[in-house]
């Protein structure tokens, strides 16, 4: 009788701990960009782009000048076709400069239905978030 009771206590406590962790506000890295223009529709997790990882390796102008990335989350209309053609992310993520596109999960690693955003940006803090709740899915799009 003892062990099932303890197991239950342990299970409840662990569950409570996980719930606590999940309830906390998102605390992703400053400058992380969630890109969810087409991912949800395609049944993929949204993309999380870590600015910090890339700026350790490249100056801003390489992507935002040479590769033509606009300074706007979700403003580039990036899809897998363009990436396979060597545009945008595909300029590096081709198995040559960086790992190739078959590692889907490394980019498509966001929590499903997270709207496109620059995480922790001033705009995100000031402007009412486009809560992409089920009642109005179109709001988070444009």
């Amino acid at each position: 009788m003892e062990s099932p009771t303890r197991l239950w206590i342990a299970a409840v406590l662990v569950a409570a701990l996980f719930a606590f962790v999940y309830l906390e506000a998102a605390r992703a890295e400053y400058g992380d960009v969630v890109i969810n223009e087409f991912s949800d529709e395609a049944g993929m997790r949204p993309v999380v782009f870590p600015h910090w990882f890339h700026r350790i390796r490249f100056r801003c102008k390489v992507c935002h000048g040479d590769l033509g990335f606009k300074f706007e989350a979700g403003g580039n209309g990036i899809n897998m076709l363009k990436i396979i053609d060597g545009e945008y992310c595909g300029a590096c993520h081709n198995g040559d400069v960086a790992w190739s596109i078959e590692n889907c999960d490394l980019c498509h690693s966001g929590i499903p239905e997270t709207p496109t955003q620059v995480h922790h940006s001033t705009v995100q803090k000031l402007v009412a978030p486009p809560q992409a709740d089920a009642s109005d899915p179109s709001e988070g799009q444009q």
Partner: protein
Amino acid sequence: MTVINMRSLAVLMIAGGLALLAMLLLASLAEAQSDPNRFNRLMKPAAERNAPPPEDGIHDPDSPGTHLLQTPREAFAALPDSISGNYVQWNEAMDKGVIEPRNSLTPVSTPPIVLDLNIVREVKGSMPDVVYPHKQHTQWLDCSNCHPAIFIPQKGANQISMASILMGEKCGVCHGKVAFPVSECRRCHSRPKQQAAAN
């Protein structure tokens, strides 16, 4: 009989250990959160900064890829500290050679064309005037990243307000998103007003 006893004992010990661990964690978390008069009540505790991807709130911990990603803490360990944003002094890191970001896709990079020119903007309010250093910006960016789309390269031609910056325009295209956040007022508003200095 003995086998069952051993198994139940093992289950008991594992469950007990788990429960203890969970209780300890919960207790420490509760203690950290509960003191109503703690310092920096609304600020992100230092222990939560640069969280690993599975715990950061936007990466899906259920995705196998999430657990392969590098944690920022590991990458930032050797970089100079800052008090906001990524908690990294990016310019200092580059100046000291701790990081050597490429200037092109290929490893053989031509050095960036750095322009050492400060622009002083006298501001209307009571804040110190803004000193804009081209140097630090051109270390990362090309002229064409900002001119002429964001800033007309002509003195007096650009109306800039904090409101527009906060809404992600002008300086706010980068500052408050990726470059150091707008909470660091004095990094831009750094030159005391002439009048104020005279009085």
